[in-house]
């Protein structure tokens, strides 16, 4: 029945996403004055114009409050693409694959629907199939880096095959009662991950997300928005051995450096992890728009609680996490003149994950026959804080694209882990700076090559580890905890570039065909005995409507 419901929900969301593909093109009609001052005369859908569209429409890109999209000057677009991603090299987190390939199909698009009084509808759907090779210390999770400290790990370098269906729908009503816009952002993910070496779990993941929101227009320049945020995520997997004669070493992880030695085999039933998460949050937005200026000041707060158990039949609490996040951001777009635009983003994100562990006793009396919780305590905390800033100048064109752009960004990263007893800490501070430039070469009226170069420098400004646990002499501590600590604090230099060829003027002159290739090379600057480099490459072919 649950599977049936997933199919039904998946179908509904997919249909909603497809609605946008058939929506008729509408001229942008916003609730507030057009801050682009009408410089976009007739936007053609090209790789450059869609990139610009997403950069300039601040609510669309930077807010979960879908109702705010009516404050954007977003027009209709739609795209569909097939992608191939390659990733290779030792400069990585321990649990990431060393040599990965991903195939993807993705589509997104939307616009205002005239038949629904300019209601905005947008949808996104993607399917990704990843082959991760030589991933380590994970025998449970679809994404071992998502934040939970409670999972089963094993030391075998393994191949994983992960596939994920990810879809999202945003809808915003027309302006109601001259002041109010109501919107909703719905998301659904369904994935499976299968490890290809003993111990091998088949992990299932599903996540449903809803963000209803409202925006109130205060005159012609100001608007206030608020939204509610909720998601439910379930993930479960049980690791088993296909070679039953050989037990596999496993670690029941409670926190980096704090784990239980275990074995997965015929006599050990502790091979399953069931995750049940609920998250609630709120967000608020203030928008200012006038001729040539669009500011979005936003703040978000959310709290996720995730219980982890080890069985469906007689569940024992493995742990609970309280994942608290807040963020503030200022995003601005300045349309300086007909051909000049400046984008500015500044944000601060903070995340704090408390890890709760339980003291339990099994009551085997006939009437009870379950694990009884006798005490629970917060045993660990992992926090991260990011301060990010970026600025981008864009030489725009009347067709909605751009001629060239240049930008720079900075990110300050602060990671702090603490295990309260035995008292152990990890602290890492990093700063990353990046520069990029892109040029759109037009060849005739229909052909274009969008080419870009970029580079980044990450430096570690501080790191310290103070471990007082019981496992300092173990392979899992040295090979996993320490190596992962070093990877987080390893600086690098990177350079990369991308080239996109597009043939426009298709599908009634608004469509285009594109082929793109991109590559980035990262060279480790620290701990070069452990990490060398990483190459990321991606190829994509698609259509724009």
């Amino acid at each position, binding site marked *: 029945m649950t599977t049936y419901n997933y199919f039904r929900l998946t179908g509904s969301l997919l249909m909603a996403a497809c609605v946008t593909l058939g929506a008729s093109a509408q001229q942008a009609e916003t609730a507030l004055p057009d801050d682009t001052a009408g410089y976009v005369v007739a936007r053609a859908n090209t790789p450059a114009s869609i990139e610009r569209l997403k950069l300039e429409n601040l609510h669309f890109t930077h807010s979960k409050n879908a109702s705010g999209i009516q404050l954007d000057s977003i027009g209709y677009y739609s795209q569909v693409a097939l992608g191939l991603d390659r990733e290779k090299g030792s400069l990585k987190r321990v649990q990431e694959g060393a040599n990965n390939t991903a195939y993807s199909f993705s589509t997104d698009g939307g616009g205002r629907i005239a038949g629904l009084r300019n209601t905005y509808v947008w949808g996104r759907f993607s399917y990704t199939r990843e082959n991760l090779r030589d991933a380590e210390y994970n025998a449970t999770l679809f994404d071992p880096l998502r934040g939970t400290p409670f999972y089963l790990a094993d030391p075998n370098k393994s191949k994983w095959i992960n596939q994920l269906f990810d879809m999202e729908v945003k809808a915003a009503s027309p302006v109601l009662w001259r002041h109010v816009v109501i919107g909703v952002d719905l998301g659904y993910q369904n994935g499976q991950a299968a490890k290809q070496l003993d111990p091998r779990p088949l992990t299932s993941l599903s996540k449903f997300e809803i963000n209803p929101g409202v925006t109130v227009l205060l005159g012609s320049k100001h608007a206030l928005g608020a939204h509610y945020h909720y998601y*439910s995520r379930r993930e479960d997997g049980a690791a088993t051995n296909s070679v039953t*004669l050989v*037990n596999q070493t496993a670690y029941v992880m*409670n926190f980096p450096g*704090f*784990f*239980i*030695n*275990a*074995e997965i*085999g*015929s*006599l*050990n039933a502790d091979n399953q992890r069931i995750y*049940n998460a*609920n998250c*609630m949050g709120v967000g608020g937005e203030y928008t200012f728009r006038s001729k040539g200026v669009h500011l979005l000041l936003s703040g978000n707060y959310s*709290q996720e*609680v995730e*219980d982890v158990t080890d069985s469906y039949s007689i569940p024992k609490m493995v742990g*609970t996490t*309280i994942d608290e996040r807040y963020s503030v951001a200022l995003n601005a777009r300045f349309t300086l003149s007909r051909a000049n635009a400046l984008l500015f983003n500044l944000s601060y994100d903070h995340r704090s994950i*408390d890890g*709760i*562990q339980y*003291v*339990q*006793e*099994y009551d*085997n009396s006939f009437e009870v026959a379950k694990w009884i919780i*006798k*005490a*629970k*305590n*917060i*045993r660990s905390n992992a926090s991260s804080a990011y301060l990010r800033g970026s600025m981008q100048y864009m030489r725009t064109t009347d067709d909605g694209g751009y001629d060239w752009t240049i930008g720079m960004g900075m990110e300050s990263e602060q990671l702090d882990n603490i295990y*309260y*007893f035995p008292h152990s800490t990890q602290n890492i501070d990093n700063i990353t700076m990046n520069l990029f430039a892109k040029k759109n070469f037009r060849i005739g009226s229909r052909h274009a090559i969008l080419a870009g170069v970029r580079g980044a420098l990450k430096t570690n400004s501080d790191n310290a580890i103070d471990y007082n646990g*019981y*496992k300092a002499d173990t392979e899992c501590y040295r090979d996993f905890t320490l190596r992962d600590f070093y990877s987080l604090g390893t600086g690098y230099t990177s350079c990369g570039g991308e080239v996109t060829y597009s043939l426009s003027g298709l599908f009634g002159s608004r469509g285009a065909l594109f082929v793109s290739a991109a590559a980035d090379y990262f060279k480790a600057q620290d701990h070069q005995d452990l990490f060398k480099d990483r190459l990321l490459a991606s190829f994509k072919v698609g259509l724009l409507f």
Partner: protein
Amino acid sequence: MKKRTIFSLVTLLGATLGMSSCIDMMESAHDASIVDPISVAIKVSAVTGFVDSDGNGEADPNFKPAGLNVRFVNYDEDAIIETTTDENGIAVADVTPGNYTISVTGNVEFEGATYYLNGSLQNKALMHDISPEEAAASQDYSMSIRPAQVGSLCFREIFYCGSPGYYFRNQFYEIYNNGDEVYYLDHLCFAQLHPNVATATLPEWPAEDGQNNYVYGMVVWQFPGTGQDYPLYPGESVIVAQEAADHTKNQGGTGEYALMDNSKVEFEAWSGNAQRNNPDVPNLTYVYWSGSVNTLQWLTSVFGSAFCLYQPGRELTYEDTSYWKLGETTQHPVGSSTEYARIPADQILDGVELIPTSTALNMKRIPGFVDAGAASVEAAYVNKSVCRKVIGHRADGTPIYQDTNDSSADFEVMTPPMHRRNGEKQPAWSWSLNQ
């Protein structure tokens, strides 16, 4: 319209219940506070007399419980905190709240002999500070340990887990004279202890049995002889097989998975299956069998049973109802009518606890004075055995094995199982030497 209203109400109710459950989950998580370590004290004393069910026993002043190693083990976290007892037998440690197995190991000298003071408390909930004064005054935080003299007779190798293909008939048990004096096997009893499979939920025995005064046998075999018929000299071993057959003749694995040839062992633990009796091999006699006798075979758990050797000092028989009496030589757990052989602590020579995996020490079932730890081959039907570690050799080349009454430390896993793998000698009376 009515249907739509009902559907809307149901949806609203579902959403409300879902939200309510979500809020409950969040509120419950917020009940937790940051952990504070606690300081706990444990009082250790050595007793040689009867220990009642509350753990009360008169401390024997001849055995000073000072300088003993005390380990607080939290298996839920793999946390091991070690400390030692002071001159009053008090050990103090800082730990996180949780369930602990507290084990005490060490030895003392008394009248020229070495005695082990090994004991353990399983699954003890330590949730708050316990001062040394509290520990000394409360039986909840005290351990009365029975000194065990270092014996010469021990289990050298046990093959219990079976072989690939779910083959279990080639189980064997090798008993070794690790001392420096001859030991006469006559009347020696070899017991399989209750519970058969390791469990964290131990049976409750009647209060009259007290604590750690007895262990309880499911099946008891006795060696033949009248007094000095079966000498076992230092460096000699005897092997008892479940079925004394050449199992290599059966279809099985090869190499490290090859089945055992048990056809030349000293004794067969034959329980009555006429089709599985090797007439060449002397049979041990079962003298106690809890419940009804399994005449198909004597199969001990492939996940690991517990065994002991004890010397009752007389010949026993299964049929001797004048000997096997409830409350004297047999006992049943509270709430059960199934009786088990009641084996006095002072008759035990050696014991070994075998558990499904070495991480399952919280499932230990026999008292610490018999075995402070437990051994495991970690899996079933993998053709592996547990064997004591060699710590030296005699002048004649026979090995000396580690025997500290702590199987976790004393045993190692071997592949494949093997009779007399380190040059142990066969006793001269062994039938296979005289055929």
